[in-house]
């Protein structure tokens, strides 16, 4: 009996692997539910109902999935090239901050120009933030994992400084928050009186665009080659540093867009609780999707269902909604185990 690497992954296996990982994660998460002395089936039923049980619930789940698609794509693009961008949280906040700075009256343009403007500046902010650790990695060999992680804290403090200082809303009753985004810069709602906004469409389009880029273009081919083996890519004549910088910029921009969507589509103003860790959950989304951009959309929906549903379940039967984080973290680890099945096959001989 031995393991041998697979050259191709059958489609059935590519679907079965994450599905079984999620089932295993849900089984493991039943342990804390049993400890809380609640019916496991009832709890999962409530999670399902809370996330998909009504029209409103579905819109909440879609609203929650929107930033997760963006941060999931940010992680998927970077990880494919083995650029470990763990800084999506910081890039998200910097994108949101820039969108808020431009969108709260600093610039006045009609809607058709204003919305693209906030999207572009937000994406640019995220991209430029990711440029720092990418260049440090390439030029000075500084590990990007630590720099991107530490920059998250720096950015959060910077956002805090701005919304308590120059960007503070004078009408905010003393709360540290920015002024509201002007009407022209606000992303339109997809369904009236709900929180699901046009950012969802953009996120899905981004997913398709990233998929095409990664699978069908030279850029994507180079990114995958650098991820598989930088030495081989260099030997094949690819400009490895340039590829890395490109990947870093795209990844940062996607995370920045997550922030724009939250501030200009969902919340309407910037606060420090804009993201409950979307940047970190994006890593789980990307891994569940096995770094495939189209699968990211599905994986983001799953994670959104868990989070939205767990909030509902928590209100209904009083089990802490940290259960959602537990399910998501466990499914990342079980997905890693399942990835063994897609990468290797068992040979009997």
């Amino acid at each position, binding site marked *: 009996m031995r393991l041998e690497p697979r050259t191709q992954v059958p489609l059935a296996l590519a679907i079965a692997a994450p599905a079984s990982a999620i089932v295993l994660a849900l089984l493991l998460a039943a342990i804390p539910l049993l400890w809380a002395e609640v019916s496991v089936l009832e709890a999962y039923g409530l999670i399902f109902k809370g996330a998909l049980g009504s029209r409103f619930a579905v819109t909440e789940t879609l609203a929650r999935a929107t930033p997760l698609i963006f941060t999931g794509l940010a992680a998927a693009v970077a990880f494919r090239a083995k650029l470990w961008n763990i800084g999506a949280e910081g890039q998200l906040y910097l994108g949101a901050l820039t969108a808020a700075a431009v969108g709260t009256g600093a610039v006045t343009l009609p809607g058709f120009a204003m919305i693209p403007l906030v999207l572009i500046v937000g994406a640019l902010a995220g991209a430029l933030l990711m440029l720092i650790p990418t260049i440090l990695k390439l030029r000075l*060999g500084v590990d990007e994992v*630590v720099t991107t992680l530490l920059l998250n804290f720096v950015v959060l403090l910077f956002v805090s400084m701005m919304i308590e200082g120059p960007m503070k809303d004078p009408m905010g009753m003393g709360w540290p928050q920015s002024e509201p985004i002007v009407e022209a810069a606000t992303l339109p709602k997809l369904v009236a009186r709900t929180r699901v906004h046009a950012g969802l469409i953009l996120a899905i389009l981004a997913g398709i665009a990233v998929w095409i880029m990664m699978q069908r273009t030279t850029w994507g081919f180079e990114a995958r080659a650098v991820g598989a083996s930088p030495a081989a890519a260099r030997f094949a004549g690819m400009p490895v540093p340039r590829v890395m910088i490109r990947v870093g910029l795209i990844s940062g921009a996607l995370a920045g867009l997550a922030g724009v969507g939250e501030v200009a589509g969902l919340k309407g103003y910037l606060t420090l609780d804009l993201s409950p860790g979307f940047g970190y959950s994006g*890593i789980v989304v990307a891994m569940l999707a096995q770094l495939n951009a189209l699968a990211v959309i599905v994986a983001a929906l799953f994670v959104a269902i868990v989070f939205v549903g767990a909030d509902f379940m928590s209100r209904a039967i009083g089990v802490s909604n940290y259960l959602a984080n537990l399910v998501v*973290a466990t499914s990342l680890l079980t997905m890693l185990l399942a990835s063994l099945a897609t990468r290797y096959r068992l040979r009997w001989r």
Partner: protein
Amino acid sequence: MEIVEILFTVSFWAAATRIATPLIFGTLGELICERAGVLNLGIEGIMTAGAMAGWMAVYQGADLWTGVVFAFAIGMIFGFIHGLFTVPLGLSQHVTGLGLTLLATSLAYFTYRMILPDVPSPPRIEAFQPFAIPILSEIPFIGPALFKQTALTYLAFVSVAVVGLVLYKTPLGLALRAVGENPAAAEAQGIDVYVMRIGAVMIGSGFMAIGGAFLTMSAFNAFFFEMIAGRGWICIALVVFASWRPGKALLGALLFGAFDAFQVRLQQALGGDIPYQIFLMLPYAFSILALIVMSRRAAYPKALMVPYRKGER
């Protein structure tokens, strides 16, 4: 210059040592893992879990040292998961570590909420108290700064010495460094690479958990959400800064502690003129800067992040 004078006060260096203690444990723990060839990004979560576990054990009636041992054991369990995933299974050390941080953090928070569903403010425990070490604390200046601390700080100093000795003066330490530098050669010497690596990750994770426990059992005496606040990531930077040497890790952590303590005092002196967030950013910025300076000549363990498969070249 009042601000410079701060640097020559005993109370400043005593504070620096307090701030450094969790970082000494965390850096030492990460160093042990990386010396065996395994990057452990679970550190932030393991510190959170250790902080919660040690504190909760004492809150439930255990004595302080039992709490420390409990935290260490919890750390070892998480270390075992990380070792299992990354060593025999050869899964991505980055992703496993981050997953472990998410898991350990959410388990700690969930458990805290399970046991204490609705406490208005975080309850406190009778924590470790500072005591002076006879003779050593009478050394002028250094004595009262370093040797009028709590037991966990002394444990941190002792751990550095013990880990240093084991790493450089014993066959065990040689074996551990060998699996991190050249696992194939280590195996040829009859060393079980998997056992060594998993063992190192477990011990290292235990140290990380005590680092977290210091915060709840010796510094703040209560558990708060988000209390680790990136200390784990700073430890990873400190390991590079220390070139994977325990003695330098101690110095690095003390230097960082001094920098952080100075930042707090600067904030008190200059507060009002400059937003406080600027001062809070400094420790993170300092860590990045330290990484930039040291990365050029970083002598990474050769097999760091390289999975080893038995019988393969």
